[in-house]
């Protein structure tokens, strides 16, 4: 048998085929994401969940008699699913657009992303509650069983079908968008929705249909994927991050570009599996990095950077809630008393996550950049601190410091890459880069895969204070938190912090004043990563473990959620948010899988009803109250003056 570089053609073509199939799914999914992003300006994070819905829809149809016994329903097979499920998923999408997504069109991009993250968590969480991590089998339809031997490889009919049908759907979508009247409306509305409305076209309805169509594509991909991959609640979660990377690589502005990029990346992934299997999960993210370095707008991108930092801060600078000099001593005192009131370990968890949220607030609240990959800094620092303490016997302080240094370096590199793109892309890129670190940690030997690094010694502070004593540990963590909190406050109030604020409020103006805003953004990002690293390393020492969960995107989402609940850009918001989220996680821990659903719902509710967060709302309320008091007082003195006359 002929071989190539010691690799049999069966293996090579087999993997290429798998790669091509993955590529078809990437193309179908990124097509939907790109169309939705183009028209609605929404980074549809829930796309993965909708894909999963498609697969489950097919499975449900097959098991109708078991699910609803006594109704005499027939079991509907694959072909029925292919016809019915995409429509059903599309309708669900239309409903979601109507009820939720429509409400955030006028708001900053960040809210759309947060909303869809929340919706994804709710949907995937619910399925997780129902079906757990185990996958459900879905058999290949009878008509497509078996395959053909091509001589150099065996080609299963079903895979051939997926490739042909998937490509057909992609090309048909391309044709509709690029060559039909309907597509012309779509393209025009992407450019200038108001003018298209002024021509008499119902653009809001079109947005809904576009969303439903994109989502329907995801549903269709889900049905097609069901016989190949297992039908599981998690199937959409990992693919969506890859899809975001594909969209970043392809760039906006070209439907054919999105299709081509998806196919190409699937094939490259397949080839990598042949030649360097360990790298196959990360290769797409590595390509994304290369594209960002050499062609920031993406391979087919036309857009030039124009979106800027978004001012989402809800802080009122004059409120006494923003006065760090007042609050630092208060927090110190409260922090010192706290372990006598609550369980100290719980207190330490709150402190670690509060610091993490404060660090995140530095970039999200102070600079207005929607970073969505802070798990990378938190988690990598946790791993490094855990590893150096456990394996190299580093003293605790040094272990934390080394974690911080690594997080800072990673932050500098990620920041350097990510600030090339703005707005939603910034979020997608940081998310994808963090996923790169996550995949690295799954595979690297020193991180111990699923187990993580356990039994990390807490050690002795300054060589003699035993940190295995819970109280000692608590006060050490409190000190770290207060130092971090004070430093972040100081940064915000420094001249550097004022420049960050000016970037947030009006980046073009800051540029026109002569500031090279990218450098300031990069520095702020790096600092934010550093403090996130401090939080992560401390957490690893306190809980004596570094695990994959620390690196997973849910940790990034936690940081965002805490900041949002507390009040973006406020001094105390991240702390309040950390208390709420950590308490919520503890209280709902008994609910098991429901935690994710509750957290997702919290996201959705926050975006819809509490955009200013607890502290932001409080500051607003106090400001209006003191304002009305002032007016009332002025009115009273006015009356008094009149009376004197």
């Amino acid at each position: 048998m002929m071989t190539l570089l010691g690799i049999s053609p069966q293996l090579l073509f087999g993997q290429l085929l798998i790669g091509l199939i993955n590529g078809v799914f990437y193309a179908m999914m990124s097509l939907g994401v790109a169309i939705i992003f183009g028209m609605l300006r929404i980074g549809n994070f829930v796309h993965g969940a909708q894909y999963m819905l498609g697969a489950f829809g097919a499975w449900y149809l097959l098991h109708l008699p078991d699910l609803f016994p006594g109704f005499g329903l027939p079991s509907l097979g694959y072909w029925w699913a292919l016809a019915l499920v995409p429509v059903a998923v599309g309708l669900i999408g239309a409903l979601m657009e109507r009820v939720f997504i429509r409400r955030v069109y006028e708001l900053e991009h960040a809210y759309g992303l947060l909303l869809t993250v929340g919706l994804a968590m709710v949907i995937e969480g619910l399925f997780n509650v129902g079906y757990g991590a185990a996958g459900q089998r879905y058999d290949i339809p009878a008509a497509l069983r078996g395959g053909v031997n091509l001589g150099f490889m065996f080609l299963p009919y079903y895979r051939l079908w997926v490739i042909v049908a998937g490509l057909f759907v992609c090309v048909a979508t391309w044709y509709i968008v690029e060559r039909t009247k309907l597509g012309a409306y779509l393209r025009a509305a992407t450019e200038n929705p108001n003018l298209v409305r002024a021509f008499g076209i119902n653009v809001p309805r079109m947005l809904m249909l576009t969303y439903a169509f994109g989502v329907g594509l995801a549903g269709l991909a889900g049905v097609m994927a069901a016989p190949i991959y297992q039908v599981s609640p998690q199937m959409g979660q990992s693919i969506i991050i890859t899809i975001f990377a594909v969209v970043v690589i392809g760039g906006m502005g070209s439907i054919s570009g999105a299709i081509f990029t998806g196919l190409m990346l699937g094939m490259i992934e397949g080839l990598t599996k042949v030649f360097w299997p360990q790298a196959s999960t990360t290769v797409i993210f590595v390509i994304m990095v290369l594209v960002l370095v050499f062609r920031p707008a993406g391979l087919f991108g036309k857009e030039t950077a124009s979106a800027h930092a978004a001012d989402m801060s809800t802080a009122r600078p004059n409120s006494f809630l923003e006065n760090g000099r007042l609050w630092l001593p208060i927090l110190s005192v409260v922090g010192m008393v706290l372990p006598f009131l609550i369980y100290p370990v719980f207190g330490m968890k709150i402190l670690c996550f509060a610091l993490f949220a404060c660090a995140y607030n530095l970039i999200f609240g102070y600079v207005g950049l929607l970073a969505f990959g802070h798990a990378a800094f938190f988690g990598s620092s946790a791993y490094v601190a855990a590893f150096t303490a456990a394996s190299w016997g580093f003293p605790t302080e040094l272990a934390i410091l080394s974690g911080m240094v690594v997080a800072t370096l990673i932050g500098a590199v990620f920041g350097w890459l990510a600030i090339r793109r703005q707005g939603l892309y910034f979020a997608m890129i940081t998310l994808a880069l963090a996923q790169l670190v996550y995949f690295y940690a799954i595979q690297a030997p020193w991180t111990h895969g699923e187990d993580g690094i356990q039994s990390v010694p807490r050690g002795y502070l300054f060589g003699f204070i035993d940190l295995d004593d819970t109280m000692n540990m608590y006060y050490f963590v409190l000190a770290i938190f207060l130092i971090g909190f004070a430093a972040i406050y100081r940064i915000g109030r420094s001249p550097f912090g004022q420049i960050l604020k000016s970037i947030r409020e009006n980046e073009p103006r800051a540029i026109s004043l002569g500031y090279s805003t990218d450098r300031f953004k990069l520095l702020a990002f790096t600092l934010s990563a550093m403090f996130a690293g401090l939080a992560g390393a401390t957490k690893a020492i306190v809980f004596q473990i570094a695990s994959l969960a620390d690196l997973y995107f849910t940790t990034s989402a936690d940081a965002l959620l805490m900041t949002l609940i507390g009040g973006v850009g406020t001094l105390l918001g991240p702390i309040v948010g950390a208390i709420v989220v950590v308490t919520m996680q503890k209280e709902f821990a008994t609910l098991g899988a429901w935690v994710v659903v509750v957290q997702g719902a919290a996201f959705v509710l926050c975006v819809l009803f509490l955009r200013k967060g607890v502290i932001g709302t409080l500051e607003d309320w106090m400001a209006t109250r003191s304002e009305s008091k002032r007016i009332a007082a002025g009115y009273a003195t006015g009356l008094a003056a009149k009376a004197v006359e």
Partner: protein
Amino acid sequence: MNARVSLSVSDLQGWYGESKALHGMTFEVGAGEVVTLLGRNGAGKTTTLRAIMGLLRKKTGEIRFDGEDVAGRMPEYIARRGIAYCPEERGIFASLTVEENLFLPPVIAEGGMAVDDIYALFPNIAERRNSQGTKLSGGEQQMLAIARILRTGANLLLLDEPTEGLAPVIVQQIGAVIRKLKERGFTVVLVEQNFRFASKLADRHYVVEHGRVIDTLAAADVAGNRDRIQNYLKV
């Protein structure tokens, strides 16, 4: 004035966020008339057109089109009632070809111009129908922006500074087009700063300042009042 009133705007107030742009615009356009809104930059002319079209949401007052108050309506509804809008920035879509741009606005009523008539009126557009919309010259883009609202059957055209930034020869062509539109019975509201251009076309001129109409001149009065008008428009 013509017997039938096509558009009547009364006491229109409008805001961009907190800042008020329209302070009680009131004017009337008879069916088949060409009427101009003259005035300096920032007087509120474009805002008035946007308000009529439903694109300016924050407003009070009355906008009657063919007798129906459309002030609270959405742009897509107003367009389907028969008002067509040609924005100042022209709004040619870069991702559409010239032909796609031309055919984009849906036909909302009978009586629109036939495509052949449009191509006869704008020969340049016919020649370049397969180019990308924004590859046309500024003058051609302006022609296209006007051309595409003629097919739809709308009878009231809102033209926002169609001559801005164009060469004199093109301005003359656009003047000829507007005259032909009038002959065909279109009603036109023309926003202009170029009074010399407007004075040859319009039946009536409304002078706009600070978001309200401060003076009205019929075409017949223009000759005797040039100084007065120049005074309104001088910077």
